[in-house]
């Protein structure tokens, strides 16, 4: 099963309660049963998305090595990343993980991308290190992943995972209620670009779900797999009313708005090309911040009916989940559309 749910969480304790020898058993998102010795004092995350789970769950102080989505080197790290994680120069890794180096970190738990590093996970498991493999391309899988990660760390993290799930459901319910006021005919056609103007997101991707949750029609949802290469004629055929650019990559709204070949597209004619803002992690990926990405999209798609207090939502999210105080410039970036 692709997303084997959190089938069970057993406490196989040596005595009563959690002791030094206690082990938590869980089933990860690739269906593997994982035994995690408790407590987890040192852990690593080879999963660039999962690393941000640690911050949201309040266990980042136990991180000894991390892969960060969108940050391959210190040169790519923003000022915000350094503020979030002052130990970044010591923690940051990228590329394929090195087994011996990973063992040398002394991590007793590793987060891994199940789609990419299953072989590495198997080798680390053989060496006696607990490995949780994640597979997150849907909101349910994100909530499940947060819950799994939290389970490995115990009570405090579990409570934060519950808060996150409640926040997630609150936001979705609010958007759903608000956009019910808008006629279905008013759902705008949205195209989500990749790192190139002719690369678009498919219906299998997290971005597709985000657009629909925000009350839009994802025009390229018929596509499958990961990012798809299309041509301009196909984009003309879809004729999106809004084009969204991810917060990474070189594409900028001005380059599309000024391109004479794109002028027949409704979104271009109406100036509706928007680049997602970014402070820490890219909001279009299944990181905790994607919660804000949905809020941002809903406001973009239905400014008349969706009525979040964006400033309050943003401020609260970063303060609670990342213990991060937004600067005035960052807030301005987040609120700009």
């Amino acid at each position, binding site marked *: 099963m692709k997303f084997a749910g959190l089938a069970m969480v057993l406490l196989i304790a040596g005595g009563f309660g959690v002791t030094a020898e206690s082990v938590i058993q869980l089933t990860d998102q690739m269906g593997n049963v994982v035994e995690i010795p408790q407590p987890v004092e040192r852990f690593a995350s080879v999963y*660039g998305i999962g690393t941000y789970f640690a911050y949201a769950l309040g266990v980042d102080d136990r991180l000894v090595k991390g892969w960060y*989505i*969108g940050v*391959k080197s210190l040169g*790519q790290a923003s000022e915000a990343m350094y503020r979030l994680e002052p130990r970044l120069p010591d923690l940051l890794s990228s*590329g394929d993980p090195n087994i011996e180096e990973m063992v040398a970190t002394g991590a007793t738990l590793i987060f891994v991308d199940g789609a990419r590093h299953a072989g590495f996970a198997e080798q680390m498991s053989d060496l006696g290190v607990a490995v949780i493999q994640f597979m997150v391309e849907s909101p349910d899988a994100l909530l499940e992943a947060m819950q799994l990660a939290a389970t490995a760390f115990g009570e405090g993290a579990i409570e934060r995972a519950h808060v996150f799930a409640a926040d997630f459901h609150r936001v979705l319910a609010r958007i759903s209620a608000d956009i019910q006021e808008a006629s279905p005919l008013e759902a705008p056609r949205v195209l989500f670009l*990749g*790192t*190139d103007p*002719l*690369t678009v997101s498919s219906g299998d991707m997290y971005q597709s779900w985000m657009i629909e949750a925000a009350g839009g029609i994802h025009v*390229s949802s*018929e*596509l499958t797999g*990961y*990012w*798809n*290469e*299309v*041509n*301009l*004629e*196909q984009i*003309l*055929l879809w004729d999106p009313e809004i084009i969204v650019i991810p917060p*990474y*990559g*070189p*594409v900028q709204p001005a380059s599309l708005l000024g391109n*004479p*070949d794109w*002028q*027949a597209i409704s979104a271009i004619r109406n100036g509706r090309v928007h680049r997602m803002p970014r402070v820490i992690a*890219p909001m279009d*990926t299944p990181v905790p911040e994607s919660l804000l990405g949905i809020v941002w999209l809903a406001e973009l798609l239905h400014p008349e009916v969706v009525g979040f207090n964006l400033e309050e939502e943003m401020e609260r999210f970063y303060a609670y989940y990342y213990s991060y105080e937004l600067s005035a410039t960052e807030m301005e970036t987040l609120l700009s559309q």
Partner: protein
Amino acid sequence: MRIRGRSTGWLLVLLPILAFLASMLIGRYGLRIGETFRALFQIGDVPDVVRALVLRVRLPRTLAAACVGANLAVVGAAFQGLFRNPLVEPRILGVSSGAAFGAALALLMTSHLIVVQASAFAFALLAIGLVLLIATRFGSSTLVLIIGGILVGALFNSLLGLIKYVADPLSTLPSITYWLLGGLSRSQWSSIGPLLVITVAGLTFFLLVRWRLNLLTLSDQEARALGIRVRLLRTAVVLAGAMMAGVSVALGGMIGWIGLVIPHAARALVGPDHALLIPASALLGAAALMFLDLIARAALASEIPLGILTGLIGVPIFLLLFLRLLRARGEAT
């Protein structure tokens, strides 16, 4: 049996015309024939979207497909004669690997198409420069050229691997991967200028020297005895071929098989004489890539990489041609 005479000529002329018309008339966006022609020849009023589609999307892309197809096929035909080897294709001299590395390196830093193309072309020329340097040092025989090409190709393939390894899997790596798979979706008027110029110049060069290419298939001594400056002609053919292949790869990525299969198909139609083989390869190559690109852009909502299509269709065609050759020699039943 070879098709000879007037019917062959008509076939070779009609195929590219048919391919061009099909490419202009068919696409994901349903256009009526009349409005397509009105937009193409700028007669009367047509909606903006139709004009944009015909003149800014389909026309530059169709021309790009024709140029890339003609270039790869002509260079393949010329190199097969030059190296006296029917399995040679434009990639033999490491030009494509150089261009691929150049494009990947540029994609690592920018997605600006002109920069990517310029980098690909510059590294294609660097690759052929290195091959010629090796040939100068070790004697410019065809064997040295081929070995030089293999070495330079391997070097750039390794460097390409390094670029892919360090590329950001979220942003840059997909761009590099798509580019390497081959495709013409980025063919716009602003990006096909160098391709058009080099194609016209290159095809003119090969049409002018096509008679002499026959003499390069002889041994160097025999060619010299017939008054050919072998070294000069060989270097000119290699350089012209490298520029045509380089500019094609720079725009379209790694499009294989056209340079191998089309010359064989053309040879089956007009025979081995380069005087006919070069123009026949150009026409067939242009037609083939226009048809294949039509499939690549119109069959599905997402682009089918051209490199995949040329391989899927090129392999069985090559096999058929190869069996036919063996049968002609009495080596197959």
